């Protein structure tokens, strides 16, 4: 089974379009679209990370906003210590270097995912959903009460992190940075999903009993997947903190976990591109419907309902069926 050449072609066309997007947006006299696209890319990374455990691994985590938020707060807290010149815990100096803050954000959210995963993965099904939700809410309230770091109001990051000579405050620069990271991340996920590890993970979703009978100790593989997924969400959170130059506990509120899940379902559970498509659809719908009525979630709910009932696999499945009809 070889991947058809048309798939590579359409991917190449898509990539060219994405690279040209800021120019096209400027030409269309709608430069703000570049920022919308940046948001889509960042949420796409987060949703793809959630999809890694939810869609491929069958672990329905309802607490992934926690890792998104932690990623953001690592950037925010490091910046605060950097700007005030006070070391964190009296030892670690703060930083505003992207090459320091983002990897740290990924590591810290990975460590948190290891901790939360180690405890929640001892359960399954509904208990797993509730425990991940509970952990996320605990972190939410922890950051609400952390007055040093802004509490309820969140933290303002006066200047975006530095990366060489790049000005990350610039809309287009930030877009290209996020595009590069999103594409690399997707490539990484693609390799993992098709690797031996991915094979085991997808097997576990289909039948844990079968995998056990084949001699698999499921727990460590699920935990590894959960950590990878948490790291991906942390990466997205760190980028979001740089993009908005602001972090707040809202980033880890349970509704954010819900939004990520909606993106995954909209786009297509257990697909590689689905979460990115879903993130795009979600953000478009949010802005379109919100311009029309303040009860925009009602409209979104209906659309989600239709997609779930009739597309049999979200927007990704819908697109691929439309394309196949053309061919």
């Amino acid at each position, binding site marked *: 089974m070889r991947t058809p050449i048309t798939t590579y072609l359409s991917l190449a066309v898509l990539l060219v379009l994405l690279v040209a997007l800021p120019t096209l947006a400027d030409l269309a006299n709608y430069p703000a679209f570049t920022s919308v696209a940046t948001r889509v890319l960042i949420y796409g990374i987060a949703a793809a990370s959630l999809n890694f455990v939810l869609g491929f691994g069958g672990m329905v985590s309802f607490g992934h906003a926690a890792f998104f938020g932690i990623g953001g707060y690592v950037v925010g807290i490091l910046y605060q210590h950097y700007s005030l010149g006070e070391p964190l815990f009296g030892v670690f100096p703060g930083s505003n270097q992207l090459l320091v803050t983002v990897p740290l954000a990924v590591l810290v959210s990975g460590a948190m995912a290891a901790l939360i995963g180690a405890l929640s993965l001892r359960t399954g099904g509904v208990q797993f959903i509730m425990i991940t939700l509970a952990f996320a809410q605990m972190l939410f309230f922890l950051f609400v009460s952390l007055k040093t770091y802004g509490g309820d109001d969140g933290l303002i990051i006066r200047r975006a992190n530095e990366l060489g000579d790049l000005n990350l405050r610039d809309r287009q620069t930030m877009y290209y940075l996020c595009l590069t990271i999103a594409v690399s991340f997707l490539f990484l996920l693609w390799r993992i999903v098709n690797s031996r590890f991915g094979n085991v993970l997808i097997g576990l979703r289909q*039948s844990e009993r079968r995998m056990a*009978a084949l001699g698999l100790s499921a727990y460590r593989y699920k935990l590894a997947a959960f950590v990878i997924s948490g790291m991906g969400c942390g990466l997205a959170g760190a980028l979001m903190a740089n993009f908005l130059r602001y972090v707040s506990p809202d980033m880890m509120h349970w509704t954010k976990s819900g939004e990520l899940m909606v993106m995954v379902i909209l786009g297509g559970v257990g697909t590689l591109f689905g979460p990115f498509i879903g993130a795009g659809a979600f953000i478009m719908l949010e802005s379109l419907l919100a311009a029309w009525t303040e009860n925009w979630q009602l409209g979104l709910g209906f659309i989600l309902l239709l997609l779930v009932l009739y597309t049999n696999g979200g927007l990704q499945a819908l697109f691929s069926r439309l394309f196949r009809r053309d061919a």
Partner: protein
Amino acid sequence: MTRPILNVTDLAKRFGGLVATDNVSIDVRPGEIHALIGPNGAGKTTLISQLLGELPHDAGRIELEGREIGKLSTARRVHLGLARTFQVTCLLPDYTVLDNVAIAIQLRQGHSFRFWGNVRKDSALREKARGFLRDAGLEDRAEVVTANLSHGEQKQLELAVALATEPRVLLLDEPMAGLGHVESEQMIAMLRGCKQRVSMILVEHDMDAVFALADRVSVLVYGRIIATGTVEEIRENAEVRTAYLGEGEDLC
């Protein structure tokens, strides 16, 4: 007499007041098919689950090649050479037939913390998996999604997957259940074919299959083994006849 490869002594399991396994002792010698028969609810599947460690037992010993494995995890037991098939087929439904066998070989080859290479382009693995499918007569169906297989083919695949883990002892839970006459014949031929490589405990209701394959038969009733012997001995055993065989021709 050769030393048994799998030796179970005084295995016991209770679910509250119900004694599911009542001091069961059973052994399998190398190259032997030891059939386990008994009416529904006798505790045959429960016994298999305990042997593989999916269900913990309360008391007794399970020895594989002289080594006590009763406290080990299912994964460890599988690596030491136990495998099972399921009465209600338990396969990976979204994967192709070939994927189902390949993943069994993959897990046999060691840990799967390998994140980079494409597992479906691992030609050695794929070729090996094809070999097992060829033995099971499923080679033509390699690229079919498992959920689309017929019931009989799924049963054959169950066996192919179990054999792909290269077990020393195979625990078969009603491999003939739901098979037509021709399919049963094929299954019997296949089991007979791998008898030299792997010893088996065969739980089965199809008496023709049991009498055709088994070297010894044990009869389990209410969690207790009431008789063990050769096919002839079991056929002649009065207690067995009343408890089980005497219930008429309709044995399912």
